[in-house]
Structures are given as structure tokens and as C-alpha cells.
């Protein structure tokens, strides 16, 4: 995997930057503004969670970064590239709420999918070993299992391994653990922090769970709804190598209380 880099100090590069982004949709009822006036920067190698009430456009924002939604105004850059160019260069990978595994392919074959499509020839030299990635997400020995033989949590682990196979610089995650039970979710939260530390990848993670946002994020981008705007970009002051137990500390509860307050309607 990529070498772990120093996280403290020196001016890190910007992984994602958004400037005055607006997204509007045409519907039968007229124009709907999903996002307006959204600006923020995500530092390379950091992990940022995005939190907001439903309908605040957090998924839309993530999709705009991934070139799945067209922005109406402003600009987004991923490592200095427009989303479309970043997509073609495989600068980012996307993990959906649904694991989106192909049911006829085994775990390892699903992880290999990104190497077989798109500009696979370009990325094939620098890709990670699918076997190593499955081990990284804790699925060694299950390489040949079909998706229906795996639990929901395991399927999501396969999806994460698949996202990492082209060694992206950014991992975009849209409520990836939203459909899992709490125990699974906690485990995967801890694992994701570990994977982030081991790979040094930049992660942008959408969630509607306040504890998840606070535990995972170095920073939490809080959005407000109708239209979606940046309410506040909150720095989370918790240790880098935090364990799940950190959620039972007073500091953590203070942070979640503050986030909850920010989510209240203005």
C-alpha cells in the first residue's frame, strides 16, 4: 500500500476544493436549488465527514465531486483537475450505500472489475493486488465467496477493497454503512480509520449519523437544508489513533452535542 505520510505540520496539498458551487435541478414543479454558495477545501490525506439534515444535498455534493451530477455554477477541483478529468484519471473512487457487487462474480473478481473496464490499460501497472486488498479489509480466505454468501458488512468490505484497487487518491463514500446494523457499523468505522491510516488516502464520507461523523472525521462539514449551504466546517479535536471507546468520553459527547446544535433549523 501507499506509504503512510506525516499527518502533522507542513502545508498539505488540497485534495478537493469547491468554490461557490450551486446545483439546480429542473423538475415539473419548477427549478429546485439543491446546493447554493458551497465553498470548502479538503486537505490531502485528511478524512472529512459530511453531515446534514435529509434533503440538504450532501449526497448531491458528493456526486458532483464524482462527476455524477453536473454543477450549475462555481467550480470543483480534485487535485487540481475538473471532476470529469479526475474521473478519467481514476483520481477518486466511489462507495455507495448499496455494495453494488456483481452477484455472479466472486469477491476477488468483483475487486478486479475496475481493472477490466474504462481505461484499465492505463491503470493496470499501478494497481494494488486484489488479494492484498481483501486482506486489508479483513476478508482473507473469502476471496472466492459469491456476494450472496457474504453478510451485508462483508459485502461493503468488498466494495471498499474494489474502490481501492486502482490506488485512488480520494475515496468518496455515500452513507456506505447506512444499511448495516450498529455492531457492524461500529466495526467498519474502526476498520475504515485503520485503512485510512495505512493507505494515507483522502476520504470524504457522507453520513446522517452524528456519532459516525464525529468519530470518523478530522473535520465535519455541516450542511443546512433548503437550499443546501455550508453551515460550518467543524474541526474535530480528537486523537489521530482514536478507538471506538473515545465515543464514551466527555470530549466526544461535547463534540456531538455541538454538531447536534448545528443541525437544528436556524
Amino acid at each position, binding site marked *: 500500500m501507499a506509504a503512510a505520510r506525516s499527518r502533522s505540520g507542513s502545508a498539505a496539498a488540497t485534495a478537493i476544493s469547491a468554490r461557490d458551487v450551486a446545483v439546480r435541478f429542473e423538475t415539473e414543479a419548477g427549478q429546485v436549488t439543491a446546493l447554493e454558495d458551497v465553498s470548502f477545501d479538503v486537505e490531502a490525506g485528511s478524512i472529512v465527514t459530511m453531515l446534514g439534515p435529509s434533503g440538504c444535498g450532501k449526497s448531491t455534493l458528493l456526486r458532483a465531486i464524482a462527476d455524477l451530477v453536473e454543477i450549475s455554477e462555481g467550480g470543483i477541483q480534485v487535485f487540481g483537475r475538473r471532476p470529469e478529468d479526475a474521473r478519467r484519471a481514476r483520481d477518486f473512487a466511489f462507495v455507495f450505500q448499496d455494495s453494488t457487487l456483481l452477484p455472479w462474480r466472486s469477491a476477488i473478481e468483483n475487486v478486479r472489475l475496475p481493472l477490466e473496464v474504462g481505461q484499465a490499460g492505463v491503470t493496470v501497472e499501478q494497481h494494488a493486488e486484489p488479494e492484498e486488498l481483501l486482506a486489508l479489509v479483513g476478508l482473507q480466505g473469502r476471496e472466492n465467496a459469491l*456476494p450472496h454468501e457474504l453478510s451485508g458488512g462483508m459485502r461493503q468490505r468488498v466494495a471498499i477493497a474494489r474502490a481501492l484497487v486502482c490506488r485512488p487518491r480520494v475515496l468518496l463514500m455515500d452513507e456506505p454503512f447506512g444499511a448495516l446494523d450498529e455492531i457492524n457499523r461500529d466495526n467498519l468505522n474502526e476498520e475504515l480509520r485503520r485503512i485510512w491510516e495505512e493507505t494515507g488516502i483522502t476520504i470524504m464520507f457522507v453520513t446522517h449519523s452524528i456519532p459516525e461523523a464525529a468519530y470518523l472525521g478530522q473535520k465535519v462539514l455541516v450542511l443546512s437544508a433548503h437550499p443546501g449551504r455550508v453551515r460550518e466546517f467543524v474541526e474535530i479535536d480528537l486523537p489521530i489513533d482514536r478507538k471506538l471507546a473515545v465515543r464514551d468520553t466527555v470530549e466526544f459527547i461535547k463534540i456531538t452535542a455541538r454538531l447536534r446544535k448545528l443541525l437544528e433549523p436556524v
Partner: protein
Amino acid sequence: MAIDQTRPNQSRPDAMPTDPAAGAGVKSDAQRERERRKSFLYQRGPAIAVSVGLVALWWGVVVVFGIPTYIAPTPADVFAVFVEQGDVLWINFWPTLLEAISGFIIGNLVAVILAIWFVHSQLAERSFYPIAVFINTIPIIAIAPILVLLLGNGYAPKIVIAALICFFPTLVNMVRGLKAVSPQMLELMRVLSANDREVLLKVRLQSSLPFLFAALKIASTTSVIGAIVGEWIGSNYGLGSLIIEATYNFRSPLLYATVILGAGMAVMAFGLTTFAERRLLTWKPSDVF
């Protein structure tokens, strides 16, 4: 009443082990039960019993009411035909089989290719789908004479009829199957910058297989119907022509034997399709996407 509950794991006295070796005995009882349920007789026994019963009923009715053979033969009469006129039946079996198989392949192949085109071109779908629906609404028996006039008296019109009858269910199912891909799966392919061809080959085709096989199972039996109907009109070979000839000459045992042979062909085709489905669809289609 609550006293019994003090030893809950012994709530089934009949299954209680009575000696040290009996623990294994209880387990093998359950195993035997499971094997019994998997056995051929357990699975197929009831259907076989009902079939035998129906044949006996048929025989009994014909004998008891003294029905003449030319109106309804007994099972024995029909069996005699298979023994005595087996060569006639076989000579007419092969052309019908050939027509049914050719029609099955051509009809389904055209349907699959059209479905792939429709999924990639809305214009094609809007242009041709209504025509396909219209052609499907014409009774096949009404098209048959037209095709015989157009294509002559050989294999061609029969194959076309068999192909036509297979075509529509496969087209409809295949279009649905190719479109039965979750929006998120398509978004994933977009993030991976996959082109249409890659989406088709890596995602759409496999996910359409359950739909395709549902249609192929229908087509496997209807292609036989198509071939037989095609032979009804101005043909002097095949099971269809044998049916017409036997009917007009009141050779009822031969008629029945021909019908049974035709049904056997359809059942065989259905069985082969189901077998192919089981081999190809080892993954669970139920939790696709």
C-alpha cells in the same frame, strides 16, 4: 404445567437417547428424514401416481362405455402404434425436431439482438417495439398460410413460424432483463469511465440471464407448437402433417401417438433449457442489485 419446563431440552421424550450410542441414532433419524425428502420418490412420486391414475381412468372410461377406437383409443392401442408403426413416427419426428430447434435458435437470437439494440437506442425501441407488438397480436395460425405462400413448401415456412412464436416473449423479457440494472450499478460503471460496450458485457448481459431463461423456457415448448402448426398447412412430412393425416383417416391411435411424441419433444426441450439454466445461474438472482 410449568414443571415440565424444568428440563426444556428433554421436551421431546420420543427423541430421548436411551443408551450412549443413541445420540448418534437421533441425529441419523433427522438425516434420514432429510434424505427421504430429497429422494426421487418423495419429489416425483405424487405426480407419477396421479399420471398413472389418469391413464387408468382414461382406459376405464373407454372400456366401460364401449367407446369405438376411432373416437378414442385405449392406452394399449396407442402403445401398439409405437411398437408397430414406430418407423413412421420416427421418420416424421426428425423434421419437426429440426424445424423446432432452428426456429428456437433463430427466433431467440433475433430477439436478443433486437433487445440489445433497443436498450441502446431509444429511437430504435420507439420505432420497432410497437411493430413487434402488432406482429405478436396476429394469431400464428393466421400467418402460417401467408408464410407457406411466400416461402414455399419446404422447411423454411415452418422454421419461420417456430421462430416467430419464440420471438416475442424473449424480446419483451430480454429488454426488461437488460434494463434491470440498479441505477447505482450504472453510476459505479460511470465512475469507472466504462463505455456502453463494457456495461453491456460486464453487467447487463449477465443480469438479464434470469429473464432470458424465463423466456427460453416458454420458447422451448412454443417452438415445437410453431413447427407442428407450420406442418398443418400443405406439408407431407413431420408430426404436424401426421396429425392431419391421422385425423382425416380416423386413425385415432396414430393421432394419439403422434400427439404424445410431440408433447415428449416439448418436455425434452423444456428439460434441457431448465438444465442449462441450473448450470449457468449458480448465483442467486433474487439478491441481484
